[in-house]
């Protein structure tokens, strides 16, 4: 048995979009897929049962947080994160590197690993590639990530970017040889190189030579211009093995999902849908509704009348308006809707790819998303690079 079997059901005749099934030890995941982020072994107040009814097939956990609390001892005794949190479907964990570099100002990166001070007891900790895999082996997610050398996306120093990209390849080897559960967990390498074409190409080609079940594209969605972002995604999907899943890290805005599926990405994760829910923001086809706004005080419509989620079936915008940011229930209700929205969007894309109607779907999506027909250049350019020429209605 393999820890991951990827089967493509359909490829779009126009774009690079594909629809498939990723068979993982805990669940068969339909791709393209959006993976909601459940940082600490829970999804923002939602029960595992609710996530299942929302059709979530795979969710994310964060190695850095889980390694600290509850810690590997507890997770090992519990029999892994699946058991610990009562989630029977697929899980993916990140390597912990990103969190450390972005959260901890004192992180110092050397060839050995990432050195930082614990925010809990101030002790000095070294996260090496081996350590990251050891923790992830313990957590037991179906897909785990290599530790990569993370440089801020907008960083300019070429030598440092080059060093980080090459180190990421060296660390991949160390991760792969430290991996103790290759029959139950797949390590994904992370394509780095920030916005440098040659470094990215080299990174992707290096990773291609390894015996792995899928790939991730990292180091993007960190504040760079959209015009810089999409060519890097396109470059990656152009090189990476067509028969293995490709995961674009940290991307989850609806328009980004549609464009990047067209560019050939299969997996996404982002905290945005659940994070924004907390502030009363609901996702809808034309973007977002901020339910805190006074205009919703007497609005008796659901968030989205076409949405089949339990929130839209039961609650009005007016009621949500009166409890957002005050009651935890509001946060749960909008999170439910926002996850339902993401899931529905991915489902539509899969169906349209399978029916060879993906280009029409993209056109309709873009029309609804930009009701004033002000399409950004990057959307027009990225889509035209894979054969969809957006026309104004």
């Amino acid at each position, binding site marked *: 048995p393999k820890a991951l079997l990827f089967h493509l059901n359909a490829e779009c005749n126009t774009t690079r979009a594909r629809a498939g099934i990723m068979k993982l030890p805990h669940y068969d995941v339909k791709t393209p897929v959006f993976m909601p982020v459940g940082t600490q072994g829970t999804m923002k107040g939602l*029960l595992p*049962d609710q996530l299942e009814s929302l059709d979530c097939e795979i969710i994310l956990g964060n190695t850095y947080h889980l390694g600290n609390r509850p810690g590997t001892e*507890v997770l090992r005794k519990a029999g892994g994160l699946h058991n*610990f949190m009562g989630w029977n479907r697929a899980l993916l964990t990140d390597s912990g590197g990103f969190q450390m570099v972005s959260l901890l100002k004192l992180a110092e990166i050397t060839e050995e690993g990432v050195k930082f001070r614990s925010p809990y007891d101030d002790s000095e900790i070294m996260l090496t590639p081996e350590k990251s895999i050891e923790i992830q082996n313990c957590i037991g997610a179906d897909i785990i990530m290599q530790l990569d050398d993370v440089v801020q996306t907008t960083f300019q120093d070429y030598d440092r970017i080059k060093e980080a990209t090459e180190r990421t390849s060296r660390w991949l080897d160390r991760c792969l040889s430290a991996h103790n559960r290759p029959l139950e967990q797949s390590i994904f390498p992370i394509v780095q190189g920030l916005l440098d074409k040659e470094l990215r190409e080299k990174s992707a080609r290096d990773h291609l030579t390894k015996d792995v079940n899928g790939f991730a594209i990292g180091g993007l969605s960190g504040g760079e211009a959209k015009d810089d972002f999409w060519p890097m995604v396109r470059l990656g999907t152009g090189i990476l093995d067509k028969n293995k899943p490709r995961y674009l890290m940290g991307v989850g805005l609806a328009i980004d999902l549609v464009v990047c599926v067209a560019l050939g990405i299969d997996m996404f994760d982002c905290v945005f849908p659940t994070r924004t829910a907390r502030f009363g923001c609901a996702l809808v086809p034309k973007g977002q509704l901020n339910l805190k706004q006074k205009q919703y*005080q007497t609005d008796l419509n659901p968030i989205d009348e076409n949405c089949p989620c339990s929130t839209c079936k039961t609650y009005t915008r*007016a009621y949500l308006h009166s409890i957002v940011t*005050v009651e935890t229930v*509001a946060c749960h209700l909008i999170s439910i809707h926002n996850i339902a929205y993401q899931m529905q969007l991915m489902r539509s894309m899969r169906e349209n790819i399978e029916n060879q109607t993906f280009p029409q779907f993209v056109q309709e999506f873009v029309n609804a998303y930009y009701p004033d027909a002000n399409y950004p250049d990057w959307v027009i350019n990225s889509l035209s690079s894979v054969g969809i020429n957006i026309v104004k209605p």
Partner: protein
Amino acid sequence: MRFTIKQATSGSERIGTFTGFIKSPGAVIETPTSALFTQGGSVTHITSEVLSKIFTTPKLLWVPLSNSYQLETGLKAQGQGIAKFAGLSGHVTSITPHSASEVTPVGHFEHGKVPLWTKNGKKMITADSYMDLMEVFQPDIILAIADSRTSLGEGYKRILKSVDRTCGFLEKCVDRYKGSKTLQTSSLIGVIVAAGVPSKCDECITHILKYKDSLGGVALAGLTDGTEESLKLVNDKIEGIFARVNTKLPKNLLRIVEGCWNPAVVLSAIENGFDVFDGSYPLKLSNVGHALALNFDLNQNDSEPCILDLNDERYKEDFRPVLAGCECLACKKHTRAYIRHLLNTREMLSSVLLSIHNLHHFDQFFKHARHHIASNTFKLYKQHITKQYEAYKQPLTNGVNEHKGKTALPQVTKKLKVSDEEMHCS
């Protein structure tokens, strides 16, 4: 609304049913019972979807106006009442001005008005404005507005005022009630104050009973102003107060007690013929990370405490459910260790899972009480439960007091936590 006493024992405890609600005709609420405490119209921490996983039959909802006042505009626009607006159609709603377990600032009183502490600050409410709001909220049960934010330690002058004001309010409320078609689809409840001063309390009860024919029942309030000190004051005297009030009330009236009472106090109230409680107790436990774990089996003396503090390090690797054999959703799927982790990381699911368990278990506590009343074994049940609660309250031999004394209901909800990692996405 119709309240029927099904069976009474040689004592005063009784089982009954609430039926005939005009807005939720099919609902049957068995008493003694606890309502489900709501905030902003929703059962605290629990969406309507999750509520339907905890309870499959209609429940009584306790809706303090102080935390749901901000719903008024939306309710007016919708025009179908609080249950429907809050996504809880089919459930029975009961509105009271305040939550008796919430500590509020000492407010200035004006003639004919009481302060209502809402999310948007203080509002001065008159009997008229209260009944106006009731026409909008359209609950099944309305507790008349009262000046009941008093403790047993209150000065005599304050108590005099409280009785005066409360009697005046009731007169107006009854007037409005009789004159409004909309309001008559609800039941009006008279509120007893001054519980600590027998003569004034009697005066209040006599006054209420003048309106008996217009009232669906009475509620005992004015026992606590929500502070810890006032709760301590009550605990010694409360049984006596229940017993006294019991003798002053006609048997057939529905009786409600407001406040955050532990299982032992609840059982003394039931013993004295009280039927309905406000549901703030299980919420209080959930909000501080405690799980109620009463042993209902009279033949078994359990050594585990009847309340677990799941914040405790000792549960870190405890992979048992909160309570063995509990049929709730949380116990069937999750462990003490997991809930402890959620508390430790301040994740919202901790409150959801604890609420699921505590609401289910508190409901079972009343179910067993009804069963024991029916089989004339209520005294034994009361002893069995009270013993567990007393044991829990006792300091442990090593000098550590397990009971942390967090008696007041924490204000609103814990601050929604925004995890620090969440800058991950553009």
